């Protein structure tokens, strides 16, 4: 075996390596792949390992539940000032003037700053066509305008009210149907574009725009439309078509967007609630013209992001300006209202889905037309599932963004996919009924993904699919049903993912990476990977993450984190292991490759009594500390994106009270795959969270805009309704171990696919219960009663 130094200097050297491929409990085969010689040996399947794949409680769980974990909101620095933003009360306006005099004079105020430009919104493509204005045009109520920093939060709040702004109100529209009509007030005077973020979001650039309607664009992120739908529908013997609507959902992370900015002569340090320490650093460095090396971003713990926390944001820019002006650290944490209004949301959709199939169930054509609103942003597409779930030869998606005067969308846990699945999976259900084919069998016929096939089988066993009765079988007022829907998501890899592993002479092990924990538990997964390699316990590894002082970590978006950052962790640990084995081998008088590591010992594989403790080996280090840095290596011959898909199949059992319209989710069975699960306990936790967010999306959450004033009426947690403990059903997680030989850990991702299918599964269960389709979410009592009454009307009151 080549030594570490040789392999590093000869990256072109490869070796053939056998990897396990397949699904545990179904079939595992060995496949041989050429990998760089510096790669560690292939890992066996999880059942052969000591730490990886074992349910492992979070290393930081105790810190979190005792309140000892320090979130950005908890940061208090000496001399720190408190800030408050000043936001627009109007949905559309030109600012004639801003007078900050009174605010500046308020006791305790140290700095006031007015924003020069707005981040996160679309901008007019040809800047000469933007409305002339000294200040950014206000395009939504809640758009930040300025901020005040003072010695207390109370003083900042009071002073913020003293900033005098003279608005010229402009005509507005907050209703997407109205916005599409000719003569509707224009949100932008000319075509507009928005850049995406590290987590996606934003739409394709340079799209034709007519009034407030931008697009349609055809095709998706992996390419143009497939085949010819005219031909596909001509081949079809059965065609189904349906119209569906989904609402705007706000991210509603428990920790609001916030930052503590500490501007000093020698550099800027920011404590940010972010899912991308590096992406915040990059945005701040760009806005302030600073070298990236002078910007340090720290995120020890963060309270949720879901896609809306990649950049510095307007609040980060404001806090940094205020800190620079005041010469003191500034804390700017948004309140819940600002969070709902200005920091992102999941776009709405208004979809028409048409599917054609042959009588044997072969889908011949899928056509999706969608109009969604991302407010003053772009990227309301919902076509991913229609494009990528099934092997249909003819697929056309035509999708347009509808601008309205509301806060911009941001990437949100599988952008476009919950919307798309809600519609697509109900049409698949309807198609199955029309064809007289079981919905699971119909999917078997059209879905090539091997993991989902297993998930359908295992999930069906757990929920008891054979109990499922024909739609509308119950006679009483409360009706029960079972439904299924599935998700598709993709393997994205952030190649800019690095880890350093250090061992000191006392035998302690440290891991350093800029990667942050968005909540999935990456600290523990990283510790498990290093512990496996070094023969230690996960709790032996001191994991330091969430700081751009450490090697660059990936942003946590697109379900990339575990997939991207665990391979370099293993590779760095492997390099350390080789160095330690060399020392141990000399002591034990054997060749290094005769050694093995487990249970805190390094020993001769053929005679485990012959060995040293890990600490004894470390004591032989010639320097106090050794360190190895590793960066993500390519996916063993596969590209960074767009080749594998992950997914899941969820089964819902619901009851519908047809007299009150209340839908109760009684049980969800969630069968999912994520490549090799590193920590099945954390993966199950992600799935639980995805299901809960999916239930909340299906039944409760809804941004409600008052069309007469252009204001959101429920920017709080009282009337913006989120599922709580009593809305939590029994959730059974079925986790598939799938091996694909894509990296040294072969880990995938789970955060996003876990929330995609829930609303579709609930809708299909609703249909099975009542014989009526819910074509719009959230399924409020008002909508449920209307849909049931409508169906009664159509069937002459028979139901």
């Amino acid at each position, binding site marked *: 075996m080549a030594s570490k130094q040789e392999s590093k200097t000869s990256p072109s050297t490869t070796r053939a390596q056998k990897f396990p491929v397949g699904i545990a409990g179904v079939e595992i085969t060995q496949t041989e792949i050429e990998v760089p010689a510096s790669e560690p040996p292939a890992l066996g399947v999880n059942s052969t390992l000591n730490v990886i794949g074992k349910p492992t409680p979070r290393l930081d769980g105790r810190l979190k539940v005792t309140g000892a974990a320090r979130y950005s909101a908890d940061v208090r620095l000496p001399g720190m000032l408190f800030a408050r933003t000043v936001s627009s009360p109007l949905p559309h306006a030109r600012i004639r003037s801003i007078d900050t005099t009174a605010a500046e004079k308020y006791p305790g105020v140290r700095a006031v700053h007015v924003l020069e430009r707005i981040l996160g919104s679309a901008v007019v493509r040809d800047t000469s066509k933007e409305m002339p204005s000294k200040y950014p045009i206000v395009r939504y109520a809640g758009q930040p305008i300025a901020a005040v920093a003072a010695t207390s939060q109370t003083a900042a709040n009071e002073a913020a009210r003293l900033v005098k702004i003279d608005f010229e109100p402009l005509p507005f529209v907050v209703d997407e149907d109205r916005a599409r009509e000719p003569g509707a007030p224009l949100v932008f005077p000319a075509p507009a574009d928005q850049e995406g973020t590290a987590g996606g979001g934003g739409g394709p650039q340079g799209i034709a725009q007519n009034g407030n309607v931008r697009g349609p664009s055809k095709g998706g992120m992996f390419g143009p439309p497939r085949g010819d739908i005219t031909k596909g529908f001509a081949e079809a013997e059965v065609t189904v078509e349906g119209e569906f609507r989904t609402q705007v959902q706000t991210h509603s992370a428990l920790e609001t967007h916030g930052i503590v900015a500490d501007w000093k002569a020698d550099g800027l340090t920011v404590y940010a609630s972010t899912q991308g320490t590096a992406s915040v650093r990059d945005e701040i460095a760009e806005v302030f013209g600073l070298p990236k090396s002078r910007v340090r971003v720290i995120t020890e713990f963060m309270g949720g992001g879901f896609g809306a926390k990649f950049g510095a944001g307007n609040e980060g820019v404001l806090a940094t300006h205020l800190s620079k002006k005041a010469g003191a650290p500034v804390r700017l944490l948004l309140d819940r209202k600002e969070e709902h209004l200005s920091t992102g949301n999941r776009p709405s959709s208004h979809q028409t889905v048409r599917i054609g199939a042959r009588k044997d169930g072969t889908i011949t054509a899928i056509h999706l037309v969608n109009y969604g609103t991302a407010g003053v942003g772009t990227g309301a597409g919902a076509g991913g599932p229609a494009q990528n779930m099934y092997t249909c030869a003819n697929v056309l998606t035509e999708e347009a963004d509808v601008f309205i005067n509301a806060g911009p969308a941001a990437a949100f846990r599988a952008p476009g996919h919950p919307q798309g699945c809600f519609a697509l999976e109900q049409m698949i259900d309807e198609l199955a009924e029309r064809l007289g084919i079981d919905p699971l069998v119909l999917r078997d016929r059209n879905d090539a993904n091997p993991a989902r096939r297993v998930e359908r089988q295992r999930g069906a066993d757990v929920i008891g699919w054979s109990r499922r009765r024909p739609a509308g079988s119950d006679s009483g007022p409360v009706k029960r049903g079972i439904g299924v829907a599935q998700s598709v998501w993709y393997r994205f890899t952030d190649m800019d993912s690095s880890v350093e592993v250090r061992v000191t002479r006392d035998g302690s092990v440290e891991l350093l990476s800029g990667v942050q924990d968005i909540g999935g538990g990456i600290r523990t997964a990283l510790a498990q990977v290093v512990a496996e390699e070094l023969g230690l316990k996960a709790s032996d590894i001191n994991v330091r993450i969430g700081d751009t002082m450490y090697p660059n970590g990936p942003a946590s978006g697109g379900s990339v984190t575990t997939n991207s950052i665990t391979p370099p962790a293993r590779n760095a640990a492997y390099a350390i292991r080789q160095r330690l084995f060399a020392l141990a081998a000399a002591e034990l008088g054997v060749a290094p490759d005769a050694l093995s590591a487990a249970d805190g010992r390094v020993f001769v594989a053929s005679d485990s009594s012959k060995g040293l403790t890990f600490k004894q080996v470390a004591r032989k280090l010639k320097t106090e500390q050794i360190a190895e840095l590793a960066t993500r290596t390519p996916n063993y011959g596969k590209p960074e994106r767009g080749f594998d898909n992950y997914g899941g199949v969820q089964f819902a059992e619901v009851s519908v009270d047809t007299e*009150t319209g209340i839908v109760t989710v009684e049980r969800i069975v969630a069968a999912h795959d994520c490549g090799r699960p590193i920590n099945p306990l954390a993966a199950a936790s992600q799935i639980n969270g995805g299901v809960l967010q999916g239930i909340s999306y299906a039944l*409760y959450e809804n941004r409600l805009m*008052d069309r007469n004033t252009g204001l959101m009426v429920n920017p709080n947690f009282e009337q913006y309704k989120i599922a709580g403990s009593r809305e939590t059903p029994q959730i059974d997680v079925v986790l598939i171990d799938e091996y694909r030989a894509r990296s040294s850990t072969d880990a995938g991702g789970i955060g996003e696919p876990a929330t995609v299918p829930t609303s579709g599964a609930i809708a299909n269960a609703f249909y099975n219960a009542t014989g009526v389709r819910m074509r719009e979410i959230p399924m409020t009592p008002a909508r449920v009663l209307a849909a049931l009454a409508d169906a009664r009307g159509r069937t002459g009151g028979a139901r």
Partner: protein
Amino acid sequence: MNAFSWTDARTVDEALAALDGTTAVKAGGIDLLDLMKEGLATPSRLVNIRNIKGLDKIATTDAGALRIGPLVTLDRLSSDDEVRKRALVLAEAAGHAATPQIRNMATLGGNLLQRPRCWYFRSEQFNCLKKGGDHCFAQEGENQYHAIFGNQPCAIVHPSATATALVALHAKLEITGRSGAREVAIEDFFSTPEQDVTRENTLGTAELITAIVVPAPASGAVSAYTKLGEKESFDWPIGEVAVVLEMNGSVCRSASIVLGAVAPIPWRARGAEAALNGKTLDNATIADAARAAVAGATPLAHNGYKVAIAEALVRRTIQAAGASV
């Protein structure tokens, strides 16, 4: 929130002496804090009555009535044996309100006096009728949770679950002012928007509720309470019904039926009561009563569904009360 001063009253008289048009009474402080944070209440002084001795008692009088102090928390109300025995609908209403954390702090008096949850009222950005403006934004706006009865000129629903129960129980309030105490039937305590759109009750500036008196249950009394929210955890009702029936065997001698979350005041369904009085409690009679309960509803553009829900809840709640005979 504005700066304010603080009076810690030790007696009712001390509290009354401190009250004027610029002060606010603080008991549990739950609703008051919300109002102050949004700038809807800007008192110069808070008069804390939480430490007044004797206002947190639950007593049973010789006549079998319950005398409940206004500082009794919703949590205690929901679990107190005497209350559960003599006024089950009140215990149930208190136990289904808000969240466990809020029920630990919120008081019965505060629950009766809380301001409505209408989102137009609750946002300082809408200068609605209730705040002295000239417009009810709910009439042509987002009114899915608003009133289906008595909803002109203002369409709030009364927010108090305990009020719904107490009206059904024919409770009385003891109200103390500087010149002494008066007693008022709780039904007469709440006022409609037509009477004064800026208020929900008739409590004077320098007055406190000092006791809530629930008369002894009549012989043969049975009762039931139902709250329906879109969610079960932390949500306001979209329909709420309290039913108290005086039964003689299977015949209903006298019915008291009150709907919550449907009108600016606890809404007594007199038509439904009349439909039950003197009748044998069978399914047809109960269905008639439920229909009568919603006759005359005047829903707005987005809350018609609440009429159907109210009807179903009245029917189910009467059935539940009848089943407990």
